[in-house]
Every structure is written in C-alpha cells, then in structure tokens.
C-alpha cells in the first residue's frame, strides 16, 4: 500500500463527505430551526438530479443544468413548505414522519410518470472529464470540482450564519424561538426561505451526483439514510456538526471499502476476503454511528437542546 493510494482514497472520502454535507446542512438547519424532521429531503435531491439531467441534455450546458436543478429543488421545497409542511412544525415527530413519508411516495411516483421507470445517465461535462496529475497519479477532475464546490458552500454557510442578519436570526431561532418572533420578524417567511435554501442545497447535491450515479427513483432515500447517519454522528441542529459528521462518514465509508478487503486478504483467501470485507465495509458507517452513540448519545456537536 503506497501513500499515493492513501491520498487518492482520502480525496474520494472527502468528495463523498462534501456531498453528504450538502444534504446534511439543509436537513439539520430545518430541524434545528423549525423542529421538523423532513424525510422528503432525499426527494429534493432526486428532483435536482432529474432536472439537471434533462436540462443539460436539452441545452448542452451542464452549468445551466445545475442551476435549473437547484432552482427546481428550491421551488419544490418552497411549495411543499407552503402547502403542507408549515402546518406540521408544531406537531409531534410522528406526524412529521408520516406526512413526509407521504411526500416521498408522491415524488417517487411523479418522477416515474414524468421520466419513466428506467434510469437516466448523464456524462461528465467535457471541461471536467479529464484527470488532474497529482504527483504522478491521475485523479478525476470532476471529483476535485465537487470537493471545491462543497467546501465553498461550507464556507459560504459559515459566513451567512456568523456575519449576516439572516444568520443571526437562524442562530437565535434555534435556541430562542419565541424571541425571534418578538423581534418583529416575519417568522413564516423566514421559515419558507430557510426551507427553500436547504432544498436548494439538496438539489445541488443531486445535480452534482448526476454524472457519477444512475439517476433513478429511490436514489433520494439511499442518500437520506446516509445523511441521517451523518447527523447522528455530528449532532442535530449544528452546521459544524454536519460538516464534521459528513467528512467522517465519507472517509470511513471510502476507506472501509478500499482497504478492508485488502487487509483481510492477509488473513484469509482472497475471494472470501473480498466477500466478507465488502459486507463489513458496507456496515462500517453504522458501526461508527453505534460507537458515537455509546460515547456521545447526542452526537459530537449539538446545537439544539430539544429532542
């Protein structure tokens, strides 16, 4: 095992981590501020991916596609917030689970009607389809692009939360809900905006995932559950926790898949090592989650005191 392989896998882990961060940031903000558990967050990711693929294919421009995907996800998010979800903020989590579960069924079926049941594939935009030379090893430029975008978003969110009036309201809103209302802020509008921003980030994640995954119904749920693991590890309601959790989960998952079968080959025959290694690697992030639960049941960082 060379350090180059190690560096390559670290970048892969980082890339998966920032994708998860884009998802986790929206989910954790919406929970931290509105106390809403939104299972349909993955559906917004799916909407982003489908719209990006369609617009990219029609216009030939991936950049345009990504913008359209983000806009579509933000629009879908804003609409479901206005129509249904805002009625659920004061309800218990069970009601939220059930209603957003209903939304998932709706979105999955809607996508099936509009795009059909077969998966779509999107090729990497030409400008990013090459590789970058990293000390003699070629590394896909597109993955580096995702890392850059993810880190930029993280930085942008930090600036937004620490330095702006909206950020002040977000910080105040997650701890002193009533006080923000007393300041004369239009809470309903603030909530819709925050929800749409979270949806837009999910749409961005979906758009960026397009060239790397099969775009299909159900893709949202797979990433949603990984996002939950991120949030459990990082602590709910905390954007910093979401970032740390996402990078940790991304790295553990990538390393597990890359190195576990290899490590096991040292002690058993190769084909068995590959099978056993793959199935343990698939479970590695859940083992990480269980370990965090043992030490810190409320995650590594926790912003919001409620349950």
């Amino acid at each position, binding site marked *: 095992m060379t350090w180059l392989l190690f560096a390559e896998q670290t970048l892969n882990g980082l890339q998966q981590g920032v994708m998860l961060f884009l998802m986790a940031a929206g989910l954790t903000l919406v929970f931290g501020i509105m106390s809403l558990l939104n299972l349909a967050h993955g559906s917004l990711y799916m909407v982003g991916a489908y719209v990006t693929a369609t617009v990219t294919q029609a216009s030939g421009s991936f950049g345009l596609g990504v913008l359209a995907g983000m806009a579509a996800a933000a629009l879908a998010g804003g609409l479901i917030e206005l129509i249904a979800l805002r009625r659920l903020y004061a309800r218990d989590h*069970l009601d939220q*689970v*059930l209603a957003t*579960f*209903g939304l998932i*069924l709706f979105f999955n*079926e809607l996508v099936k009607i509009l795009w059909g049941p077969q998966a779509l594939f999107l090729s990497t935009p030409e400008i990013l389809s090459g590789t970058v030379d990293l000390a003699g090893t070629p590394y896909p430029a597109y993955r580096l692009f995702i890392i850059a975008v993810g880190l930029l978003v993280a930085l942008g969110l930090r600036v937004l939360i620490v330095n702006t009036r909206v950020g002040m309201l977000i910080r105040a809103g997650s701890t002193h809900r009533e006080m923000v209302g007393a300041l004369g802020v239009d809470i309903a509008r603030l909530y819709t905006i925050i929800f749409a921003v979270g949806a837009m980030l999910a749409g961005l994640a979906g758009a960026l995932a397009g060239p790397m995954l099969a775009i299909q119904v159900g893709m949202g749920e797979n990433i949603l559950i990984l996002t939950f693991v991120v949030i459990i590890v990082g602590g*709910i309601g905390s954007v910093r926790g979401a970032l740390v959790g996402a990078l940790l989960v991304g790295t553990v998952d990538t390393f597990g898949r890359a190195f576990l079968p290899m490590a096991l080959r040292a002690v058993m025959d190769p084909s068995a090592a590959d099978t056993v290694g793959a199935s343990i690697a*698939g479970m590695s992030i859940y083992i990480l989650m269980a370990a965090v*639960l043992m030490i810190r049941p409320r995650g590594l960082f926790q912003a919001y005191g409620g349950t």
Partner: protein
Amino acid sequence: MASRRTVVLTLGLLLLIGLPPAALAFGEPFMVTLWSRILIWALAAASLDLILGYGGMVSLGHAAFVGIGAYTVGILGHHAFEGSAVPFLPGDWSGSALALVQWPAAVGAAALVALIIGALSLRTAGVYFIMITLAFAQMLYYFFISLPDYGGEDGINLWQRSEVPGLDTGDPVVFYYVCLVLLVGFLVLAKRLVDSRFGMVLRGCKQNEARLRALGCPTTRGKLVAFAIAGAGAGLAGALAANQTEFVDPGLMHWTKSGELIVMVLLGGMGTLVGPVFGAAALLLLEEVLTGITEHWMIILGPLLILVVLFARRGIYGWLAGPGARDG
C-alpha cells in the same frame, strides 16, 4: 347492553372467521390469500403499536424484525432441504422444516436483534431515535443484500411451507386460519401485557418519562423489554409472511415497509391493539383498489396520507368504536 366497542370487535371477529367459506362460495379464492396477507401485516402493525402507541417510541425500522423472522424461516428451511449445516451455530445442525422449530426460532432471533438494536437506540430519544432505528434497519437490509449464500438481492425460495403435523399449511384456507389464530393469540397476550403493571409503566413513558424516573423507575430497561417484545411479534409476522409467499427477499425489510407499518398503525388508531388490524386492512385493500385504477397508485396514496395526518388523527377504530375508544 353491549358497548359499541364490543359490537365492533365481535362483528369484526365473526367476519374474519366467516371470510374463507364466503369467499369460496362466491368463487373468489383470491380473497383468502389477500386476507391472509392482511392478517400477517396486522400482526406486525399491532406489535409496532405496542412501542409506538403505548410506549411513544417512534421506530422507523420495525420491518427489519419482520425480515429477520422471515429469513430465519427461509434459512432453516433452505438448510433442511439441502441437508447442509446452518452456519454460525455450533455442531452441524441442518435446520428444520417444522413450524414448531422454525417459528419459535424466528421469534427468538427477531427478539434478540431487537434487544441489541434497542439497547443502542434507547440511549437517545425523540428524533434521534427515529433516525437511528431507520439506520440500523437499513444496515440489516444491506447486510442481507450482501449475503450471496442466501440469494443476495434476489432472496431465497422456500421449498415448502413450515410443517405443522396434522395440518396442510399449503392449503390457503388452512393457512388463513393459522394466521388468524396466531393474530388473535398475539392480541390477547398483548392486551394482558398493556393492562399489567409493565403496561402502565409503558404508557407512563409516553406521557412523562422523566416523572417515572423521578419516582424511581428504571424506564430505559422497561422500554427495552417492550422493544424486544415488539420485535418478537414482528418476527412471528415475518415467519408467516415467508410462508405465505414461499419466498424471502431483502425487500421485506426495506425501510418503506417500516413506513407502511407506521401508516397502518395511525390509519387504524394508535394506542389501541385492534386499531392496527383495521389499519392493515384499510391500507392493503386501498392498495388493491387503487392498483386496479392506475399503476401509479402511490401518487394518490401519498397526498392521502398527508390529509390523514392533518385532519383525521383518531383512526378508523377510533371512528368506529366512538370517542374514548381505548383498549384500556
């Protein structure tokens, strides 16, 4: 005079007993199979309601225990047919096709897994609990997908239904009555449980767990026992589900199945044991009707669920049996 609740329950039970002969007389044998499925999922939903409706634990991974029960039957039957040894067990026991062996094993395995998952998940509460139960269930789902010996994603076939001496479980009507007896048996036991001291603690946990602890009750231990019992009930449902379809695949434990179980509980009436039976019937019949109208029936079901949450919280049983309809 009999209360409205007694009337609803008696009528419901009589209808269920009389269903197979009526279905056969009207030339609709398919109804027997459909209703067997309803009884099985009713059992799973009722077991979920023990922790959800009574204990206030929103588990979004209950289908995992159904899956464990189903796979236990599938794996034991598989090895009995092949004559090969069951892995991870001492000795070279080659499984069994007997219901008397398979079903208790399914119940035990599901209870054990529930005990482990519960012990970890119950370190938290509220929204964390929802996400963690979901994540662990999904972990099991991926685990079974990665087991090539048992068909991986494709699942395994049962070569025969579990054998009950003196009964032909292969006959749909016989199998229906087996399911009905097990469901009613489970409901009677569960009713005793929720009325007992243990049940009072469980209900107390839902209302004010901190107060129970302040009174001196180790609530987490009680919730864990309830979680394992609910897992056991789901395991039995899984054993029956495997038998009914004569096939087991990871899809049985996919998280959407857990979501559907919650829907059944809420649709029927949470915090009652009979409610989930009505809920299971309603959801599966609705599916049957809607699929007849359009293959995209989920586009109707999804918004319908949201409407139920927003406007009809009492559930079907609460509506039938009148206000204040509780099992206790």
